[in-house]
């Protein structure tokens, strides 16, 4: 079967799963909805509780979950290829720690950074993410021509530790309620309550996805090693730079939208590889679509398991991802 056909079938199947998830998720929830009432044009929207639950609460949540899941899964694939390490995640290079620090600061020291209908926490979080990306890139390119993936990895890990200790310090300075809220933010929350936060994150994610579309062939060759790849005509430095920035941008936007939701960036790529093989031209689109469906499903669980309490979605992904990851490790060894 030609590659084109395989890509087509893969996108069709995984795309179908993603679309099905996005269509079904808003219909499922802790409150029984009457679809007839939801779409009843006769009733003014401002009085229609069912319609508001559907269009203000569930649908934005589903879209946010799909976008964040897609972004984190795709970024996971790209980072794993960039670092040539199957245990790498979108959070390995310090982006989420920077985003978390930005969010902590915004929660603990409320300064008005609200911008275009988005509250200060996502804005500060994204700024933190960009800051972390800049620091890591600077560290890995200073004093050398080109990008050393080893230094990139070390810089990312160091930044993660450093920012984590800054986060602990901020939590120490905060009062009890703020500390509780910052800890809760770290577990992920997709209840965006409207479309403004999604629209604010969308341009950055879209930019990331556009670059992702260009990368698969180069990533295939990059996994053979930098020398082997450049011998086959890949501009290694440009590929690494594009991979790093696009994955970091998508991750930063995703984390500022829904918090640092773990395990998607590692479970989804590995699961997809089990299904379609290791060719990035299949793995990348499939992971993007499957990541969307996966997080949409996890979010449905998070908002229905202990209703009316909203469980942090990061707990659901961890409960699913943890055992899976252990199984993966055992299987590999």
């Amino acid at each position, binding site marked *: 079967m030609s590659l084109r056909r395989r890509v087509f079938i893969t996108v069709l199947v995984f795309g179908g799963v993603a679309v099905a998830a996005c269509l079904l998720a808003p219909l499922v929830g802790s409150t029984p909805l009457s679809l007839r009432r939801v779409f009843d044009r006769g009733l003014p929207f*401002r009085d229609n509780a069912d319609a508001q639950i559907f269009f203000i609460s569930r649908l934005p949540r589903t879209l946010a979950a799909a976008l964040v899941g897609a972004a984190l899964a795709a970024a996971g694939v790209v980072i794993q290829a960039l670092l040539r390490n199957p245990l790498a995640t979108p959070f390995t290079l310090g982006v989420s720690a920077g985003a978390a620090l930005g969010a902590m600061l915004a929660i603990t020291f409320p300064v008005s950074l609200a911008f275009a209908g988005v509250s200060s926490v996502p804005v500060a979080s994204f700024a933190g993410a960009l800051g972390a990306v800049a620091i890591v890139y600077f560290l890995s390119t200073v004093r050398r021509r080109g990008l050393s993936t080893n230094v990139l990895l070390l810089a990312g890990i160091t930044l993660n530790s450093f920012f984590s200790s800054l986060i602990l310090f901020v939590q120490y300075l905060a009062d*009890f*309620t703020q500390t509780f809220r910052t800890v809760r933010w770290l577990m992920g929350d997709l209840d965006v*309550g409207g479309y403004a936060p999604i629209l604010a994150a969308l341009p950055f994610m879209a930019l990331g996805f556009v670059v992702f579309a260009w990368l698969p062939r180069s990533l295939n060759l990059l996994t053979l090693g930098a020398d082997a790849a450049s011998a086959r005509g890949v501009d290694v430095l440009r590929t690494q730079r594009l991979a790093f920035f696009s994955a970091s941008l998508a991750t930063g936007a995703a984390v500022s939208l829904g918090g640092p939701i773990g395990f998607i960036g590692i479970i989804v790529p590995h699961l997809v590889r089990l299904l379609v093989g290791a060719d990035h031209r299949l793995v990348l689109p499939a992971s993007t679509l499957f990541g969307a469906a996966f997080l949409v499903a996890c979010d449905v669980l998070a908002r229905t398991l202990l209703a009316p309490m909203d469980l942090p979605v990061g707990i659901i992904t961890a409960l699913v991802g943890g055992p899976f990851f252990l199984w993966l490790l055992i299987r590999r060894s």
Partner: protein
Amino acid sequence: MGAVVGCTRARDTLAWMLVLLAGFGSSAGRARPAASQAGAAKTHPPQRIVSVVPAVTEMLFAIGAGPRVVAVSSFDNWPPEVRTLTRVGALLDPDVERIIRLRADVVVVYGTQSDVQAQLERAHITTFPYVLGGLDNLTATIRRLGAAVGSQAQAETVALGIEARLGAIRQRVAGQPHPRVLLVFGREPGTLRAIDASGGVGFLSDIIALAGGDNVFAGEKRESLRISTEAVLAAAPDIIIDLHYGSGLTPEQIDRERAAWKTLPAVPAVRNGRVALLVGDEFVVPGPRLVDAAEAIADVIHPQRRTR
């Protein structure tokens, strides 16, 4: 020569050990005799009180023990007199060394700070453990505090006054139909993300019941729940009480916070304009000012029975 030096060293070491032991022995000799809190307080009321719990600091000042308070927690800011007092940390980081150096007689700590209590007890300092509870815990704690610091009479007066005011609220709203009340004590500023609401347990929930309201989450056996916008729409409260504390809010901020609820116009409270923004620390510090909080909340729930 080596043997002589060795002997001298051993002798010096022994001498130092004896000095240290003597020091310990004498401090043990100076230890206060073990006695019950109340018994000691009657004869020798504590003169130097340290409080790590802001709610109890407010109680101390209310019962007239304020002049005897020498240090407070990092988060205390009421009454204004505490602003000049020494700070000794709080729940997570109490500075036990500083407390001991202050020669405190009684230290108010959280009931969960068992390690701090153990350390203070080893230094023979009396502790007053504070346990969080519902609304009835307020007067019970005030009375217990009065006994511990030797101000029983003043404590009784304050407690009776609080009970009278709470009883007045109860009477004022008696017989009125109970509206459904959602009490939100935390959310992201300017939006409806990360909403923390009061569950069926705790002093906020007790105040809603006292003030003649039906907490929409009264069935949840927890103090707080993180809820989604769907849960707010499904609960359909008649009244939303939106608490803000810490630094005050400017009028623009108040308008912006009130406007945040307009994204859910189907909620009866939003539709009928019954979203109340209440600003102040009295809503979250369970000290004597909780009665002011209860009166404010009662006025929101039953404005037709307002007396202030």
